[in-house]
């Protein structure tokens, strides 16, 4: 029987959570704008869907950071 894994260090967890902030926003924008661009190419609607999905990606990433930062602040 293997011993139970030690609980994660709260500081490491906090650092990990904070570091994900840096990825959430560009990733959400890139995915949104990329999908929009592909859809625009498919339907011949450039740049409408690139703009719409890019904006949606930016908004989604921003809201995610807002929620996470609120959660982290309450935790600390």
């Amino acid at each position, binding site marked *: 029987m293997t011993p139970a894994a030690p609980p994660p260090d709260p500081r490491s967890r906090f650092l990990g959570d904070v570091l994900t902030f840096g990825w959430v926003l560009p990733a959400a924008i890139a995915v949104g704008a990329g999908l929009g661009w592909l859809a625009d190419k498919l339907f011949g609607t450039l740049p409408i869907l690139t703009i719409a999905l890019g*904006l949606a990606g930016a*908004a989604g990433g*921003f809201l995610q950071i*807002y929620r996470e930062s609120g959660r982290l602040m309450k935790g600390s």
Partner: protein
Amino acid sequence: MPATSAETWALLPELFLTAAGLALLVYATIVQRSDERRIAYLSIVSLIVTFALTFVASRLVAKLPSVVFGGMFALDRFSLYFKGLVLLAALVTILFSLRFVGSSSYPSGEYYGLILFTTVGMMFMASGTHLASIYVALELMALSQYVLAGYFKREPKSIEAGAKYFVLGAFSSGILLYGLSLVYGATKTLSLSGIAAAIAVARPSPLLMVGIILTACGLFFKIAAAPFHVWAPDVYEGAPTPISAFFAVGPKLAAYAIFARIFFSGFGAGSASWAAVIATSAAFTMVVGNVGALMQTNVKRMLGYSSIGHAGYALLGLLAYTGVPAASYGAVEIASAKSPATIGVFGLQYGSPGLLAIMVYLFAYALMNLGVFGLVILLEAKGYAGESVDDFNGLSKRNPLAAAAMLVFLLSLAGIPPTFGFIGKWYLFAAALQAGWVWLTVLAVLMSAVSLFYYFRIARAMYLVEGEGELRWREEPAVGWAVGICLFGTLAAGFYPQPFVDLAKSCLLR
């Protein structure tokens, strides 16, 4: 290109205010706690001198090129108009703060210095014509704001406001910087005139499109437009109330000035691409702001949501980029009376209805919003400045003058005549209608009707509900004077708007 001495005169208001802010910070380290009020008085004097220097700079407009300091700094009446308004907002904020901060347990020395630095950032924003100078000005404003939001550092709400504002503000700056970098990559220039020239000759590329979207997103955060509005209610609720008043007005004025300059002057030729983004955000912002305000019982949060709704209305002006002939807005009379020129700021025909509407509306917005916050500060109940709607119960009997003033500001915010708020909305809605945005104008009118409900909750509390317990008033004449100025402006422009509109029109001339 080295700046001439005449160009340096154009920059004198900003230079003076920066020096004053630094001097006050140094003075704050040596002054006794009991004498800190002197710092506030010196700040007021600094702002008045800066206003006078701004007037001096306005005399140079006709003598110097419209863009000075190697293309970094615009010297036009449009920027001077917004500088005047942000100076007024800063002055009123300091008047609000005299007792509020002075009677707190926090040192007020740095507080006033930070307000001055924020104001300098806003003034540079109003004159920014180069992506680098715009970004640096925006950060100068934002960094001071983060500290001010969390100034009451032993109160959890204030800490939360400061921390949230910092985290989200940093990310919005990142988004803006992404956008500006992509625009630079697509156009090979950082100057707005160069960007305009590049967009005019080439079909917008996907790179440029994404750059424009991200730039818009970064600016949406600054004006608290949906979906980047979530910080506003939290920050307004947690920040010291005078700072909430300042945030609701000053940074928005500067952000709209730079929004208009970037999108009208830089991205104007590509307006067909970005108009949909702004229209979508405007619609969401109006709905989210007004519906969100319906559900609030804390007045500062309600005003936070209300200011989100107002940001949505003002976006209508940005959509009316071009449209009707200049004559519809009286530009012909201005041209024949003062100047034969027909080209105003940003190379647009002056009379550009969108710009004029934004300028008139934001003047009204500044006066009525500062007035409402001033009355919230005047009202002292339960240890906090009149934050709950219930705190206004029976106000008409306890202080009829304050209740009447509050009613005027609420009517103005809702856009009911005869107030400045009505005039501002009239210009905005007319501009949007004439630019063909009928559905958005209908939505704006509907949302104005929704706003009546939550504004009148406060009016009902003041006039129709009996108050409970004793309600004390702070004996602070400075706040009374500041509210009086706002009240006079709101009513005067409501009954006789022509001088206010003419002032905005004249600032659309180069």
